[in-house]
């Protein structure tokens, strides 16, 4: 299976009609702020894709009913209700019911999440009980626990009212004429309801009305973000300015490990805001949150156990109750296909440019509208990281690895292969077949590896200097680039990629955050401080072919995600060659431009933008200076790797590029920036003729293969006798290949939702699994109605798919 996947990814189809880099010749990105207008423009063919996640059910129906249109789903955001947990009395003596843990827990059953999903979100949402997003990997890992919790916390308004009444009375409140009173006054709950979108406001109104039904007086404060923040996020919770708040969170990418989220959501360790600092979690939950965040476990099973218990305790604690996963959609013309990240849609994946295609056409132009164009200046050091800027930027940059838009795991892009060494006992798993994973007793960092940077002397600090006693780490990755990498990989201006590019990135990541550097930037200091917390060493093993080693104490559950990509080291802002970044350095040293907005403001200069604007003449000036001086940045360290000739050649290439394109945004991705039209809010991208990879390299990501599950079997089962059920797993009515399936699990629940047993389905053929209930299993079943819940976990997408069947157990 792994071999098949790897073959598909790394080789692809080299049919003669497959172009290099991208299927289309050009992409034009234009501005469209109105979703309704965007749909009309899509219908008449004025635009091809509206790359904006929409939550509106009315527009969704318009798109679904129009055969000329299609859409991609995005599952990245989710809503919750946050409680002010201090108390039981605020400073002024008022009662805060949500200080009571049982009341908070009961809120989980007071609300009907299915109702919210269907009625408030018009079907564009899925009920969400726990912190986990249903399309992410962790959900599939602990799905049995979640199913049981969903049964336990099924809506039950009567029971909720009973619990809340008990606790309110215990807290000294009394119900007078159906209304809760405390110290002679009604208990008023101040509910801060965000009103930017209809659904979020509807959610607040629904929860408020549920509370009113059980005797609370609710004061609804409808506020936008800026107005709500000082009330709920920054005020002292003890002042009691609020009791509840409609929260909304988003995940820009598909996460593989959400273990750290317990720390963030249920303890005071991560978030510095007053309501988080006021949390007093259940001690066991606090402990497990730390265990999961620090990965303090030795096996996946141990982790799953801790995870399951943490989920259970998180519901008992409930400083917030999760409500729904919002199912947004991205409308497009029906004939357009493109890779779309399950969380961040197509703006969230680097693969969008290479997979974008109109039907079976090769060439042509595609027009994509987004709600904001050219938001902030582009520079890959500390420029814009806004989604709407990163979207075009991602088309212009290449990476050593690429992120799977459906699972969040890493695939090799420029990297050929990697070896990952982790300390024995760490629960790291390899699943995609391109990484050699090895467990070792000890990983000693070589003395000659570079462990830091000296910003004053402009030289690397070795491990021997930083750790004279020697140092070991939890994880090392050795990364191999192909032998022809430096021949094939080229920047848009024609300059070949060199080892200087990789080393420059490594240095500047440290240099800017270190006092004493000529380009020291205080806003980078925390980042370096954080990096040095786990980073221990970097060593070039071979310059050509490029092989390097990275030593660190940070590690991930997936072996693939332990591979450190230095091409580039930080992909969050884009990517540029050292010869344009050097111009930026010169400009910053002379206080005419600055990479970061903070420093720009501090020195009264412009924020550096390579794509256009006031930075260009300044950069052009320093280009002339660099040519004149044969400037090599960090020459003390890089002089060994960059020759004067290479520097001059590169600067002249950049000059020719600037004269032709009138900007300095030089990348190495499958598309290049032809021009960024600032006032016109238009970005014109073209196919990069110098790119080396075929357009179908990532064709496997044309659409997420979310499985559909159907369970069939007997309506009656006799106790003590064998019973067999069939599970059909399909995608678009086609059988799901067995090699693309991780597993099929099942749970049997009684009519009250109690777990009877669990087990695994047996693969039969593509798209078909069999669940055999042995006589021993059926003998455990209670007489009456039972449910068989089936959970299918595919390899090609992050989450799981579900099916179920009810049957009656007879004596």
């Amino acid at each position: 299976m792994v071999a098949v996947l790897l073959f598909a990814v790394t080789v692809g189809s080299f049919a003669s009609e497959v172009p290099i880099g991208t299927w289309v010749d050009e992409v034009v990105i234009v501005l469209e702020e109105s979703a309704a207008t965007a749909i009309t423009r899509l219908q008449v063919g004025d635009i091809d894709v509206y790359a904006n996640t929409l939550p509106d059910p009315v527009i969704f129906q318009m798109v679904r009913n129009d055969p000329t249109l299609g859409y991609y789903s995005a599952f990245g955001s989710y809503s919750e209700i946050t409680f002010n947990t201090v108390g039981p009395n605020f400073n002024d003596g008022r009662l805060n019911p949500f200080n009571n843990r049982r009341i908070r827990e009961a809120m989980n059953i007071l609300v009907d999440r299915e109702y919210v999903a269907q009625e408030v979100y018009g079907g564009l949402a899925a009920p969400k009980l726990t912190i986990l997003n249903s399309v992410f990997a962790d959900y599939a890992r602990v799905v049995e626990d979640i199913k049981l919790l969903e049964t336990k916390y099924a809506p039950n308004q009567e029971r909720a009212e009973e619990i809340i009444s008990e606790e309110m009375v215990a807290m000294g409140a009394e119900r007078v004429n159906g209304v809760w009173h405390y110290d002679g006054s009604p208990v008023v709950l101040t509910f801060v309801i965000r009103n930017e979108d209809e659904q979020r406001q509807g959610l607040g109104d629904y929860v408020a009305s549920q509370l009113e039904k059980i005797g609370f007086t609710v004061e609804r404060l409808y506020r936008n973000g800026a107005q709500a923040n000082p009330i709920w996020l920054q005020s002292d919770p003890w002042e009691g300015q609020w009791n509840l708040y409609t929260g909304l969170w988003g995940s820009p990418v598909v996460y593989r490990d959400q273990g750290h989220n317990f720390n963030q959501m249920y303890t005071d360790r991560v978030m510095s805001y007053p309501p988080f600092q006021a949390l007093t979690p259940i001690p066991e939950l606090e402990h497990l949150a730390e265990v999961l965040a620090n990965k303090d476990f030795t096996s996946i099973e141990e982790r799953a156990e801790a995870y399951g218990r943490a989920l259970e305790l998180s519901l008992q604690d409930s400083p917030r109750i999760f409500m729904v996963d919002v199912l947004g959609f991205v409308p497009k013309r029906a004939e357009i296909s493109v890779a779309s990240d399950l969380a961040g849609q197509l703006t969230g994946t680097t693969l969008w440019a290479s997979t974008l295609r109109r039907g079976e056409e090769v060439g042509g132009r595609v027009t994509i509208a987004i709600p904001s164009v050219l938001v902030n200046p582009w520079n890959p050091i500390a420029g814009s990281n806004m989604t709407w800027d990163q979207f075009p930027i991602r088309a212009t940059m290449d990476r050593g690895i690429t992120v799977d838009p459906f699972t969040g795991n890493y695939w090799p892009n420029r990297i050929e292969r990697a070896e990952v060494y982790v300390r024995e006992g760490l629960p790291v798993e390899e699943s995609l077949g391109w990484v050699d994973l090895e467990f070792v007793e000890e990983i000693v960092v070589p003395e000659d590896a570079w462990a830091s940077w000296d910003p004053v002397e402009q030289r690397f600090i070795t491990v021997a200097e930083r750790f004279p006693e020697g140092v070991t780490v939890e994880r090392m990755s050795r990364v191999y680039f192909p032998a022809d990498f430096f021949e094939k990989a080229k920047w848009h201006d024609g300059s070949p990629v060199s080892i200087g590019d990789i080393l420059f990135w490594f240095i500047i990541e440290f240099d800017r955050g270190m006092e004493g550097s000529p380009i020291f930037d205080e806003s980078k200091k925390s980042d370096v401080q954080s990096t040095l917390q786990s980073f221990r060493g970097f060593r070039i093993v071979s310059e050509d072919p490029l092989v390097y080693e990275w030593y660190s104490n940070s590690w991930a559950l997936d072996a693939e995600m332990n591979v450190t990509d230095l091409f580039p080291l930080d992909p969050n802002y884009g990517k540029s060659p050292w010869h344009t970044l050097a111009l930026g350095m010169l400009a910053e040293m002379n206080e005419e431009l600055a990479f970061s907005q903070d420093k720009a403001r501090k020195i009264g200069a412009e924020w550096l933008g390579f794509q256009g604007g006031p930075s260009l003449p300044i950069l052009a000036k320093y280009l002339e200076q660099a040519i004149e001086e044969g400037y090599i940045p960090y020459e003390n360290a890089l002089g060994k790797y960059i020759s004067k000739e290479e520097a001059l050649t590169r600067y002249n290439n950049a000059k020719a590029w600037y004269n032709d394109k009138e900007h300095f945004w030089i990348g190495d991705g499958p598309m290049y920036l032809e021009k960024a039209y600032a006032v016109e809010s238009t970005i014109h991208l073209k196919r990069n003729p110098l790119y080396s990879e075929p357009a179908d390299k990532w064709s496997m990501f044309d659409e997420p293969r979310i499985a559909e599950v159907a369970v069939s079997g007997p309506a009656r089962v006799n106790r003590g006798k064998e019973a067999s059920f069939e599970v059909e797993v399909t995608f678009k009515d086609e059988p799901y290949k067995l090699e693309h399936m991780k597993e099929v699990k099942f749970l049997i629940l009684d009519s009250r939702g109690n777990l009877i047993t669990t087990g695994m389905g047996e693969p039969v053929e593509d798209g078909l699994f069999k669940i055999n209930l042995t006589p021993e299993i059926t003998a455990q079943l209670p007489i009456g109605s039972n449910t068989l819940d089936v959970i299918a976990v595919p390899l090609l997408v992050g989450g799981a798919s579900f099916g179920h069947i009810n049957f009656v157990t007879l004596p």
Partner: protein
Amino acid sequence: MVKPVEVVQPETASKKGRFDALFRILRYTFSRGIVLALTVTVGVYLAILIANGGGHVDKIQESLIREQVGLMLAGDPEFIKLPREVRAEINEREVRIRMERLDLDKPFYVRSHRYLLNGLTLNFGQATHLLSDSGSSYVRNILGERLFPTLLLFATGQLLLFFSSVILALFLSRRYGSVIDKIVVALAPTSAAPSWFYGIFLILIFSAVLGWLPFGGIVDTPPPTGLWANILSRLKHLILPASALVISSFFITVYYWRTFFLIYSSEDYVDMAKAKGLSSSVIERRYVLRPTLPTIITSFALTLISMWTGAIILETVFSWPGIGRITYDAINLFDTPVIVGTVVIYAYLLAITVFLLDIIYALVDPRVKLGAGGNRQ
């Protein structure tokens, strides 16, 4: 006893008169200038106070900064591993850096005076949040880049509206009660709907259904490279928003001017002119237009400066990069330097216009004199 009469020679009288007139004008200019400067200063300071909610916005901004920093640090798995006190130190440092960037480390009253002084001296400096379309943080660039599209749209629309409505109104004032007059009167209430409302309809008809004109934007995407092709493309994109501007106000403006001209047309001196047998064009020019000229010029001048304000929703509907939208963004983001920039420029334009109008009145209307205590005579 009869005192000898001092005879003033005509030349001396003329010189004295001219000197008096000059003195009056200078005195008027000075006093008017002072009043206008004070008005502008007070107006701008009020705008600063309102834009900052009297300092309350600082609290909101700090809150937003703390949220931003908190989320940023929470997303860094290595940060979480740092000791609590180090995390707190980093958190506060990041908050401080951002507070300094937005000048929030200084008390509001200090900033407010600096905003005022910088604004009045047209030294707007850097915006706190907004950037120009090309990425500049300087207010002059933020506003400057939007100036041409704003002028292009609003000058076209307003000038077209102004001249066409005045001409048609004059025409109608001569044909009071005619069919066309009745139609215009009947259609006047259509101007109750704003320009963006017509904009949406025009887009639906001419872009969505007929496909003749673009949905919005200022030029085709990508913009044509040839000069003439580029100009033609911009004109094509101008048609719908300019039409929306004109249509939304056309009938009410014609109705307004037509009523205005009718009032003047029924003056006694006009009847006298008619009785004298003067031609209608002479009557229109000398007896209707001439006395109404100050009002027309005032209206025209105010129309010109209103272009500076743009129109937020219309610009949004047509994705037109105008001043209105940038002002709206600035208000939403509490970007005081940009708000001050737009207010100051508008205030200066208004003050200068009012000042010039006073002078122009004197030139076009013989009944008006400057000075003499600052009162019109």
